[in-house]
Structures are given as C-alpha cells and as structure tokens.
C-alpha cells in the first residue's frame, strides 16, 4: 500500500494503473447503465407521462 503505483507510459500519456482501472470501471458502469433495463412500476416501460 505504501509503494508508489505502477505507471503506464504511452508517448505523452502517463497514467497510473489504478487511475486507468478506475476509468475503465466507469466506462463499464456507463455501458451497463445504457444496456440494463430500468425497472418500471407495474412492470411496464413508459407508463409515466407528466
């Protein structure tokens, strides 16, 4: 835990692996949010219209 993180060097891009993993996880969460159906009350999608 006290050791410095490993870094990825890609040209001018320098990023720590933990930061890269977090960004990858955020992309995964974003894609999941797009794909997973949202639970709608009564099992109907699009029941509400204000």
């Amino acid at each position: 835990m006290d050791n410095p993180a490993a870094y990825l060097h890609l040209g001018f891009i320098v990023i720590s692996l933990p930061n890269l993993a977090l960004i990858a996880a955020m992309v995964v969460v974003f894609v999941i949010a797009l794909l997973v159906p949202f639970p709608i009350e009564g099992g109907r999608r699009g029941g509400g219209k204000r």
Partner: protein
Amino acid sequence: MSDDVAPDSQVPSWTRAVQQRLARGLPVERLLPDRQPVYVGSWVYAFGVITIAALVWVIASGVVLAFFGPQWWHTTSTGRFFNSLHFWSVQLFFVFMVLHLWGQFFMASWREGRAPTWMIGAVIFLVSIVAAFTGYVAQQNLDSQWIAANAKDAVNASGAGGFFNVLNFGQMYGLHVMLVPVAITFLVVVHVVQVRMRGVVAPIEAPGEGAE
C-alpha cells in the same frame, strides 16, 4: 404627502417580481416530480441523483470531522472511520458526477434552452475540484504537506499564489469546510431547480416533454 395607496399590482416591488418569475418558471405543483417522461426510464438518468446522494454523505461525514478535528480523525478508530467515509463518499461523488457529465454530454442536454443548466453543472464540477484540492491539503498529515509543497509552485506560477497560499492550513481548511461547500450546495440547488423548470431533456430526435 398623499394618503393614496396604489393597488398592489402597480407598486414596483422586486419581491413581487421574483414571486411572479418563480411562479411562471416553476409552479409549486411542479416543484417535486411525481411522474417523468417515458425516456427517463433509463439508469443513465440515475447518475445525477446518485451524485447528490454521495454529496449528502460527503457533507454529513465532513460535519462530523469538522466537529472533532484533525487529531481525532487521525488517531482514533472512529475518527479514521469517518475520515474514510468522507474520502470514499468523495470518490463516489466524483465518479458519478463524471458519469452524469458523460450521459448529459452524449445526449446534448444543453438543447432547448437548457444551456444555463449545463453551464452551472460545469461550474459545479470546477468548484468541486477546488473542494477536493483544499481537502487534500487540509488533511494535516505528510500526504497533505507533500501535496501542498508540490502544488505551491504551480499555484504561484498561475499567479494565484498571492491570495491562495496552499501551505496555509487555516486558509485551506476554512475554504474547504465553509466557503466551498456553501458554494457547491447553492449551485447544486440552482442546478436542480433549473432541471425542474425546464424538465429533463428528451433524447435526440425524440418528442420532448411538451409533445404528446
């Protein structure tokens, strides 16, 4: 002096003007939503409210930390627990704020008069970075000293060093626990009210809220 009093509607009044503006833009019956358009049935729309939930935890844990002080949060197990609670709720706050930003960016949520909502959101993001930075340098440990000592040159190079001394714990702590949280809370309230006034943006090429 005359005893004549003009009818209420003719007396110039900034309070009445504000009342009328609010009543026009956000009637009381629309203040809190009970139904949402069909397209809001997506997890992407949950990122914003999760960000606000994380902010509630940030503020609640921050109030406890501010009450007991640095020695408590570094040397007691309960203090370290609340310190961690504050840290991890900040991580969630930033993660979901950025996910919310991605979602709103890809649906071009500044459309149809919502540019002020988008811009206030961008300002919240920037002010939150100031909050995180002042928090990092106000931890009262070697980590915060290291960050402050490294950051001072960048801050001085930017010209802000004359009034923003990152090595001054009192200044950083005051900003972190008072001025910046008040600013963020105020801006978030304005942001949410703006969303309620204009409604949630419809997906591109989908009928908006007003359409049937």
